[in-house]
């Protein structure tokens, strides 16, 4: 099954990052990142906290600004040009650790908001699209409730549906299961696995190693703001090269 999913990728470059550096004040959070992501590729990024993995994917839709180097997403380079930023953001979906649903809007309104205002889609059509994706994440019956009335797992699935409603070409996941109860992690992972099988280009910051094994084409291990090791999941887990990676893996898989 994992192999079937992997076949959907092509050679088209979705994201190209060259010599990218970022500082918070004087603190050097990302150091010389070079990475290219092919369309349809699914990448899992892991590493200890503070290693810059979240910052890295937040740079890809410019929630964080990089100071040096180049990020090209879908052929558009991210600079301070607002038009380019908005263009990239409307093509790149993002799922957050804390869901970040809009609590004053219903589930359906959460999903139709961006298509209506950014894509200028008619309301009726946007609602159809939203219901399609809510059905896909298996909660169409919750459409008229408010986020506060849903469980964490359901909220995260709504957040995924909300991003999908913009028909993004790339999806970024920032620790999507870290704030969830164990019983709810599976329902979110299942949704993400299904998305992977549909051929979506995905970058996931996660510690779910089962997920990484099952769907990732590539696992990237980061520490101290740099890429320490990357490999196919099989090789990465069975045969880690760096001492730092070995230590990390022994700690997260050791219990």
């Amino acid at each position, binding site marked *: 099954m994992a192999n079937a999913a992997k076949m959907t990728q092509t050679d088209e470059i979705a994201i190209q990052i060259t010599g990218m550096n970022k500082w918070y004040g004087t603190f050097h959070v990302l150091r010389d990142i070079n990475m290219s992501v092919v369309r349809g590729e699914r990448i899992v990024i892991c590493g200890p906290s503070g290693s810059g993995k979240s910052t890295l994917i937040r740079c890809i839709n410019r929630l964080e600004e990089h100071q040096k180097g180049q990020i090209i997403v879908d052929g558009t380079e991210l600079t301070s040009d607002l038009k380019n930023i908005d263009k990239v953001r409307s093509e790149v979906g993002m799922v957050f650790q*804390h869901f970040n649903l809009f*609590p004053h809007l219903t589930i359906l309104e959460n999903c139709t908001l961006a298509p209506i205002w950014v894509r200028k889609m008619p309301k009726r059509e946007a609602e159809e699209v939203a219901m399609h994706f809510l059905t896909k994440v298996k909660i169409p019956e919750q459409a008229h409730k408010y986020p506060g009335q849903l469980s964490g797992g359901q909220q995260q699935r709504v957040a995924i549906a909300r*991003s999908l409603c913009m028909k993004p070409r790339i999806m970024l996941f920032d620790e999507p299961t870290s704030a969830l109860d164990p019983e709810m992690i599976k329902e979110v992972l299942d949704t993400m696995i299904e998305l992977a099988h549909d051929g979506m280009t995905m970058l996931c910051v996660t510690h779910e190693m089962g997920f990484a094994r099952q769907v990732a084409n590539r696992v990237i291990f980061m520490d101290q703001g740099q890429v320490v090791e990357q490999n196919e999941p099989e090789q990465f887990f069975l045969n880690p090269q760096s001492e730092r990676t070995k230590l990390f893996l022994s700690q997260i898989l050791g219990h």
Partner: protein
Amino acid sequence: MSDISFVRAEMLPPSEPPISERGAVKWLHENLFSGWLNSILTVLAVVSVYYLIKGGSPWVINGVWTGDSLSDCREALAGESGACWAILVERWNQFLFGFYPNTEYWRPTLTFALLFVALAPVLYYGLNRANAIMVGIVGGVLVLSLIALGTDVWHILLSVLVFAALTAVAWLAPKKLVYMSLAFPALGFFILWGGSVWGPIGAMAGLGIFAVVWRLTQRVLGDVVAGGVGLIVAVVWWLWLQTVVTTALHGLIPIGLEAVDSDQFGGFLLSFVIGVTAISASLPIGIVLALGRRSDMPLVKMLCVGFIEFVRGVPLITMLFTASLLLQYFLPPQTNFDLVLRVIILVTLFSAAYIAEVVRGGLAALPRGQYEAADALGLDYWQAQRLITMPQALKISIPGIVSSFIGLFKDTTLVALVGLADPLQGIRKIVLADIDWKGIFWEPFIFVGLIFFVVCFSMSRYSMYLERKLKTDHH
């Protein structure tokens, strides 16, 4: 350690709480007699309320309702303690309308009723039936009040027709009521101040010109520059062209009401004119200032911070004296810029600074994730503010905003200091200057205080209703 193994064969069904945990017993226990200290306080409170009523009620109930002067009241009371409500029966109209001409009382009354219609799209947002019913009830009360005020038949008939039409609109096409809200500032001004109908229409036309110019140039120049161009054209219209055009139009089609000078405004009419205008204008200005204060653009930020801090650092009375005295020096000689309007403008700016800080508090309370989610979905700055952050920030700020509004409404009595006849100080002094009522003390305070209480309490209850309605975490 014997056997620690345990397996539940059957799950327990939920059962009723014990009798001490439900109904009146629980309520009494929790709220009045939860401990010996609370029990003593409860008893003390009941006793004090009892003595307060026992001491105060004879004075209120014994009160005399008929009479032409304080001495009439004293005669009727014959030495007993009692209020002289006759002053209110005789002079209520001054407390409500100041020196507005008697025959024109229908105008402020109609304006007050129309205010509720103008507020309808906001008051019960989304509840169209409730709005229609409210408009109908307000219309009914209006007609009854007009009859009680002794208005002539034609104006009663006019009001009936207007409100029948508005109720129908509210019932059938509730969204159309927004036009009423938009027209209300000019309409209210025209009905209250009178004069030629073309003046307010000309002033509104300025806004129309702004909108048209903005629309036409927006594509070419972008939103901000187009807004600036629109504003310049509108200001040119207001300053130089409007008077020429409206005078000409008035010459052709002279429609108008008897002009009423600001000097004749007073009592609660004045309080409401200042309060309502300042409240409705200060909210949008306050929101813009709050956004400006959080802006990344240093110049915008500096201007907003400077304005807010300056206004908050200066007492309202200073602003009022500025309005009445200082502003005149900056205007061209012989300009007759209405004192009430000047006061309204400065009270609005004063209130806007406070609203800005309350709204900024609401914005600061929003989790960063909300801004990030809006950004990540590709919404631009104004969309994110309008659709995501403002609805939530304003909801958080409701108690603070309404407190500011209540404070502002009560502060309208300070206009007495610049010689306007507010109900508490201005009108009361004028009424008491009459030899017939000299020496009366409590009654006007109670009357004015009661009306202020009703208005402020309504605002407070409405804000609580709004908070409940906007609560979305559980139903």
